[in-house]
């Protein structure tokens, strides 16, 4: 193709598309060869290509924002430690450093330099969550990162093609599932190799010696698009506070989001101090999810790369749970980190376009994943050893989600991972690999926050095992004490509940024992609603009742919709009901005001 200036715009577009396709190949290769359920079933991975100064040029479509956006920063740390001019073909680098990688020891990041005609032209990086890193196992109970598992500093995985057997042996000796962990590390290295190969093919085809010009084009174009998107909204500073469960005490996540001329800044001043437990978040992960929350509202279609990330600037105070320093425990940093897009949404819901229109911002949702993480067998359950003697040793990590918040113009998604993008693990896969039995996995009726647009529903899972022994659950949940909030008159979603079937409530965080003969019930939170439920079209409420999303009772008491036995709307009764409910709301509001006046006297 001719490389005249008039056509170069198309020429660059084609090469840019190719880069995205190259990193997608890289990610797919990782998923197809991965061992841990999070990699292979859930797609909890990231893959990207970087220029030689460490700026991310493109990321795979497949992946989770927490990984992608933190990995985007990781490559620069590798380059500090191993300057480009010291890298040789066949070198592969690795770390699971929570602060320089993606936030906890369970995530391994592997970086591979790509060479073309003898020169290093770019770097490929990828990340996945391995099933075990020793220590206490995943959970918030550690008090220092040292308790959370083995730490691999930034180092060589392979030098000029030769794998570092010493490192492999040390990892093998320090984790509970060496086969899966070592397998995943090899998969990370292999997927980068595929990226490098494809890049070389692309550069040969297009006859380019470096990625400099293409990189500049990508980052310029992205920066301009971000600038245009931000220029469409009115400047100002917007505050939001969200109280969440925390571990030993509730946390306040406090943010001030400022829209500037050409960028957006977010400051978390006022947010709670670090916790003594592993729900702390290294800064890289805070940045990843805060940025994601802003970007998916302000500029969802602009590609994710160094330039789009640069237009959203995150800062935190020093002594802050969102900027936890070594050696604080961080194993379950995702519990807190995944709540950050909701904090951003609270700020963004106040933002207006220059034309004065609100942005399309969802209500709060379940947000952090509600994974089933269970263990059984000797040494894994806090129970009398003799009760575990015959129990099979197992480790189940299955990804699941509560409801997402209602959206501007649409109901929220039920049982859907947001902001994480991971897939669930099929129940049959969980049951085939362990003695666990899932007896129930269904929508949790009435858990979606009522509203003109209803919040998504959470789900209920009911589990036990085939063994005649107690088993352990590692709870890594939030929104148990403080449910997702509704917006603009929409009601809150239902709070999550973790309990035994016989009734006893378990804590939302930490490892606990489910006695033999009991079943564990996990009732996941629903998303918040948006707008007045009394204005939701009665037909939509009736449909929700027919589909089991809303009970007939709540349809009546919350939505003011009267239904007959066939769940058809009774129009006149509905009108009366809604009038009564509105009158009652006015009265309640008046009483509230008088109570407030009393108090202030």
């Amino acid at each position, binding site marked *: *193709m001719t490389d*005249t200036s*008039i*056509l170069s*715009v*198309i020429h660059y*577009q*084609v090469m840019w*598309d*190719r880069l*995205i*396709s190259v990193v997608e*190949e890289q990610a797919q*290769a990782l998923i*197809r*060869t991965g*061992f841990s*359920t999070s990699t*292979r*079933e859930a797609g909890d991975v990231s893959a990207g290509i970087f220029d030689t100064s460490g700026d991310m040029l493109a990321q795979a479509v497949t*992946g989770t924002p927490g990984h992608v956006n933190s990995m985007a920063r990781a490559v620069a740390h590798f380059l500090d430690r191993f300057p480009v001019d010291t890298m040789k073909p066949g070198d592969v680098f690795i770390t699971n450093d929570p602060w320089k990688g993606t936030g906890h020891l369970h995530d391994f990041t592997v970086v591979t330099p790509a060479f073309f005609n003898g020169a290093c032209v770019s770097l490929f990086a990828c990340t996945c969550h391995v099933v075990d890193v020793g220590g206490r196992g995943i959970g918030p109970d550690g008090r220092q990162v040292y308790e959370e598992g083995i730490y691999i500093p930034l180092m060589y995985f392979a030098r000029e093609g030769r794998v570092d057997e010493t490192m492999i042996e040390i990892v093998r000796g320090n984790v509970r599932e060496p*086969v899966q962990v*070592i*397998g995943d590390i*090899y998969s990370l*290295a*292999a997927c980068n*190799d*595929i990226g490098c190969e*494809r890049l070389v*093919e692309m550069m040969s*085809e297009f006859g380019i010696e470096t990625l400099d010009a293409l990189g500049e084009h990508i980052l310029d*174009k992205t920066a301009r*698009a971000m600038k245009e998107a931000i220029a469409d909204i009115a400047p100002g500073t917007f505050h939001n506070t969200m109280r969440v469960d925390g571990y030993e005490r509730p946390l306040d996540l406090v943010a001030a989001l400022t829209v500037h001329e050409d960028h957006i800044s977010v400051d978390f001043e006022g947010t709670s101090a670090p916790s003594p437990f592993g729900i702390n978040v290294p800064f890289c992960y805070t940045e990843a999810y805060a940025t994601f929350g802003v*970007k*998916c509202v302000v500029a*969802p*279609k602009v*590609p994710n790369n160094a330039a789009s990330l640069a237009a959203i600037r995150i800062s935190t105070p020093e002594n802050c749970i969102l900027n936890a320093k070594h050696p604080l425990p961080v194993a379950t940093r995702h519990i807190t980190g995944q709540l950050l897009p909701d904090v951003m949404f609270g700020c963004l819901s106040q933002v207006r376009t220059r034309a004065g229109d609100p942005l*399309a911002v969802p209500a709060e949702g379940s947000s952090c994943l509600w994974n089933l993480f269970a263990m059984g067998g000797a040494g894994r359950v806090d129970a009398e050893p003799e009760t575990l003697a015959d129990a099979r040793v197992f480790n189940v990590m299955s990804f699941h*989600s509560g409801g997402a918040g209602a959206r501007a113009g*649409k109901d929220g998604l*039920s049982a*859907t*991972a947001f902001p994480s993008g991971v*897939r*669930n693990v*099929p*129940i*049959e*896969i969980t*049951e*085939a690999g362990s003695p666990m*039995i*899932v007896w129930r*996995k*269904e929508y949790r009726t009435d858990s979606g926050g009522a509203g003109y647009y209803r919040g998504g529903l959470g*789900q209920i899972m009911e589990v036990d095992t*085939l063994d005649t022994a107690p088993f352990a659950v590692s709870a890594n949940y939030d929104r148990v004490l403080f449910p997702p909030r509704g917006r603009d008159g929409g009601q809150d979603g239902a709070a999550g509940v973790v309990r035994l079937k016989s009734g006893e409530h378990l804590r939302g965080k930490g490892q606990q024992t489910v006695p033999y003969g009991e079943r564990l019930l996990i009732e996941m939170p629903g998303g918040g609603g948006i707008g007045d439920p009394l204005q939701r079209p009665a037909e939509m409420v009736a449909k929700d009742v027919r589909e*089991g999303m809303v009970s007939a009772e709540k349809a009546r008491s919350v939505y003011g919709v009267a239904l007959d036995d066939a769940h058809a709307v009774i129009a006149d009764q509905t009108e009366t009901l809604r009038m009564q409910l509105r009158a009652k709301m006015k009265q309640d509001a008046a009483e509230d005001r008088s109570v407030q006046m009393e108090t202030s006297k």
Partner: protein
Amino acid sequence: MTNAARLAVDIGGTFTDLALTRDGRRVTAKVLTTPSAPEQGVLTGVKAILEKAGLAPSDVGIVIHGTTLATNAIIERKGAKTAMIVTDGFRDSIDMAYENRFEQYDIMMDRPAPLVPQAMRFQAAGRIDAQGNEIQPLDEAKIAEICDRLAAEEVRSVAVCFMHPYANMAHEERAREIISARLPDIAITLSGEVCPEIREYDRWSTALANAYIQPVMDTYLRKLSVELEKMGVDCPFFMITSAGGLTEVEMARRFPVRLVESGPAGGAILAAHVAAQSDYEEILSFDMGGTTAKICLIENGQPHYSRTFEVAREYRFLKGSGLPLRIPVIDMVEIGAGGGSIARIDELSRIQIGPDSMGSEPGPASYGRGGTAATVTDANVVLGRLDPETFAGGSIPLLPERAETAVMEHIGAQLELDPLNAAIGISEVVEENMANASRVHAVELGRNLGGRTMIAFGGAAPLHAARLADKLGIRRVVVPASAGVGSAVGFLLAPIAYEINQSRFVTLDDTFDNEAINALRKDMYAKALEVVSAGAGDQPLIETWTADMRYVGQGHEVTVDIPATPFEAEDHKALHDLFVSYYTSTFGRSIPGLVSEITGWSLRLATQAPAPEKARHEKNGKTVCPAGARRMVDAATGDMIEAPVYHRAELEPGVTLAGPCIITEEETTTIVTSRFDAGVNSLGHIVLDWNEA
């Protein structure tokens, strides 16, 4: 001696294609599809093609049929009233799907709704565990009670979807007994029968799709047989499956889900056949029509097969936005890139093509039927690649000025490009889209594309084939005879075949129980034989066995060919070695010291494909006078040139044409860029070879 004629009928979204062979002579025809009563279009087509061939209905000895009816019933949600009976506690799983978002940054995305609404999903207690043990008996009384509801609701089809039936079918089979005793007229699908594989959502989604389309297909197939018989076409009637095999109508009625996407499968068979004619070992088959492009890899005459397919991708053809089907299919990637695909500018001032298409109504701007969007076809008109007067055999006169206006309005003005460069942009981007889809598909299969031969067919493929080949490092492109009705031609070449997949976990170590596996395989063989022999009689059969293998602890399998002979006790070592060598060739490195396992077994039983007539490709040194000339942009260089135009019908085998040039025929146009020279082989296929100049 005169043999009976073989007739193939392929119903597509816009056209119904027909191909007929008798004594080595081929006739083709194209008529409009009649969506409301597809059999009418078929009958019109059959009449037309018999007339063209000068044959009587009784001369037809076999009819082979493929249709998009099953696919369309799902896409358009026009299946029968269907219910689901599901293991207690799992009523909502079909709606939760994978609990994920297939588009990370789009907070407004929605997952596709299941084919059966919640109110039609009924639960019954009863559990089989992953090892096949019953841990809770089936609630038979509840099944009977549900039957009353199904009758009251006038449900026509029901899918029984329990947990772990691949390990033990007892509960699903018992449920069928109860239902059929009470409701003899209802169609029943068992999830473990339509797909005896692990992963409940995928299996149930497949079962629901099967149940949903079963009554529709059944009615249609009955009507069609009756009408054909009335007409005098009274002969064996076969359906083509998505895996490219022929199957008796009876099997098609039981498992209609296996007919989804059967048309494109025909194209892959054609490509495999053309490859065998010239002993091309590695093929990329490229099929491009009005709405989509399909790319398929073929090696040593065999397309890749897959077990998963996604139907009705609602969101820009994006992976994850459709309904998953676990059925045997010819593995291909399909993207929204066709002649009618719409070009526009996105937020980043980048050209985007498709996936939406203008179809045939109103069609591209240049059709002059009210369409104003800029399409790929319009770009081709601007670039001089299509002759406005002879497009579609002259039946659709193209209006170049409309094409230019559309291309300028939607692309050129925004990017400050003149019409030619804007059209080059559209063409380049659609070709790059197809190139990228091909590359990702190749990596999923662990294959390279460079050095392959491309076989291009379908109305739009020969226009873009040379440039796409250039992008993929492909140095030879074949445009087969009758390329415009490629899939129907492929049907005529398909073997009678059936495939069975069965989940069964086996660790490849000392615990390997060869006798248990031999028994399982014997049972699978018997089931497949029953289906195949119904159509094949005592023809010799080819038995192809594969195993889904992985390292213990991995979640995804690779499909490895294994021997058909029974296993000895020690054969686990040989199986492990087969896996490791396949794994290494696919992913570059193997992992030392790990044990492997087999999760599923698959058998394909098929009749022998007809031996291909070998193609000769000798250049006779003759040159041909062009029929005319046209100004065209050469895709290889971007330059406007004067290109000679040839009529395909006038080209005899052995001629050589230097690129760039244009070769026209009724159903398509082949563009030869300056990078290629064209020849015609003894079978009438156009062969483009890279010129080193």
